């Protein structure tokens, strides 16, 4: 009911010229204020760790490689979760503007995960191919992480609007990969914790919540289309 009502409401709203002017204002606000703001905020995690790396605010501590890897990894996961929260947020607010930020947030998730991967490949393993391959084969949490990276790479390369237009329906299918990638990401985090699983548990609960929301919404949507 609420869905139908909001549909009708938004249709009638676009019909009036006043509302059209308002929407034009929103688009401008998103383009010239919202997006730059989110962009700069999204750079904060790398800015803060850079200040520590250059010893301007504190240091990276006794194990700087671990500090970098953990920082980039956790921010990659956070951005992934934030990205997955965009659709539910749009539905809760009943407004389309959150969708405008989804691509940027997703690409920031990829950005931090790439930094996490680069720290592992370079500073942790020094591009030792044999050691890296052994890790991927024998350490389940690294196998999981690498699989997630492959999936997210497919999303990142198909993120431009041109790719979306060209791929048509396939695009959406590729982008469903974000769900298994996020699950693998949390799992990867969970499996490398020594004993106390509280922190990965928090991410697991958040992710489950976001996935459950989608499941319920899809069910509700289907039952509206095919009433039984």
């Amino acid at each position, binding site marked *: 009911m609420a869905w139908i009502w909001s549909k009708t409401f938004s249709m009638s709203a676009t019909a009036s010229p006043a509302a059209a002017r308002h929407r034009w204002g929103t688009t401008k606000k998103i383009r010239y204020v919202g997006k730059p703001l989110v962009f700069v905020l999204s750079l904060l995690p790398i800015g803060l760790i*850079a200040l520590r790396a250059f010893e301007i605010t504190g240091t990276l501590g006794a*194990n*700087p490689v671990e500090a970098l890897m953990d920082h980039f990894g956790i921010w990659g996961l956070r951005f992934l979760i934030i990205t997955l929260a965009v659709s539910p947020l749009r539905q809760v607010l009943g407004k389309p503007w959150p969708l405008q930020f989804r691509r940027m947030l997703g690409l920031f998730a990829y950005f931090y995960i790439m930094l996490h991967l680069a720290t592992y490949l370079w500073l942790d393993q020094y591009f030792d191919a044999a050691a890296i391959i052994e890790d991927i084969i024998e350490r389940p949490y690294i196998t999981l992480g690498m699989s997630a990276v492959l999936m997210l790479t497919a999303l990142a390369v198909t993120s431009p609007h041109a790719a979306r237009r060209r791929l048509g329906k396939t695009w959406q299918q590729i982008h469903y990969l974000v769900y298994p990638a996020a699950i693998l990401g949390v799992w990867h985090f969970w499996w490398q914790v020594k*004993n106390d699983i*509280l922190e990965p548990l928090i991410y697991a609960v958040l992710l489950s919540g976001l996935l459950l929301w989608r499941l319920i919404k899809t069910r509700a949507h289907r039952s509206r289309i095919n009433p039984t």
Partner: protein
Amino acid sequence: MLIKRADPIKPSEITSEAVYFNRRRFVQSAVAAGTLMLSGVACSKETATNTAYAGPGAGAASAPDSSSASFVADALGKLQPSKYSTREKVNSWEDVTTYNNFYEFGLDKSDPARNAQDLKTQPWSIDVSGEADNTGRFYLEDFISPHTLEERIYRLRCVEAWSMVIPWAGIELGQLIKRFQPTSKARYVEFKTLYDPDQMPGQRRRSLNWPYTEGLTMAEAMHPLTILAVGVFGKVLPNQNGAPLRLVVPWKYGFKSIKSIVSMKFTEKMPANSWAVAQPREYGFYANVNPQVDHPRWSQARERPIGEGLFAKKIPTRMFNGYADEVAHLYDGLDLVKNF
């Protein structure tokens, strides 16, 4: 380019024994002459991170002025060198005292340095029980004073695949154990950490089965490499490092070296150590450093030396953490893959 490049460690930077002992003698004579200007040398962050550790004596002058730990401070003034010390480059005070696994004070490695400062370590007593003739409750002072403190510079290899070189000050556990006259039934020694959630915030959650429990075979406990430490860098042990009394077993993964000990028990049965109880598939009773036996989730073949900067490569892990000549015979006939 994001991060400053650290210079690679040159062999010349590792203090040679001759220089080390020379410096020691100089520092000791300086202390003897009443020159106490060295105070705070190892305390100040800048000097500690940029200057090589100058050996015992340097810190004795800068022991905390609280009378609580005064007898340890006095004993540290007479700290003796040991043939068991490695000549490898010692980590900085900063590394040793800010990168700690001590779950009683939090799970993050920076937590213990923050949360352990209010731990009351005086008075401190240790309960000695079990299969021994001379058992009872002993004040820390009675535990330590009959012995001469030795400086033992040991490698420390954590099960998480990182390592440090740390100049402990302590006594041989074997020498202490002789005083308790264990009976023929004593096959193991079990140790327990203080249980006090008021002082140890990490114990308010069951991240491990408290109190932290560890154990050694009698042969391991009597081995001359095994020490009970009361100091580090020639100074009284900081709380985050396991004050006032901790075990150091250099050929085993760090979690065997139990901190803030309040109980020692001689037993016939193998003690159930906390990590082996928490994750029996991943952590065993022996926990000997062994590059050939991987942790189920990560490799133990290499380790990250702490304090070598962002661009340091990992180094190969050595059998028994490099102490194979001294301890390998303890495990003759034991399957080290099964008894990990």
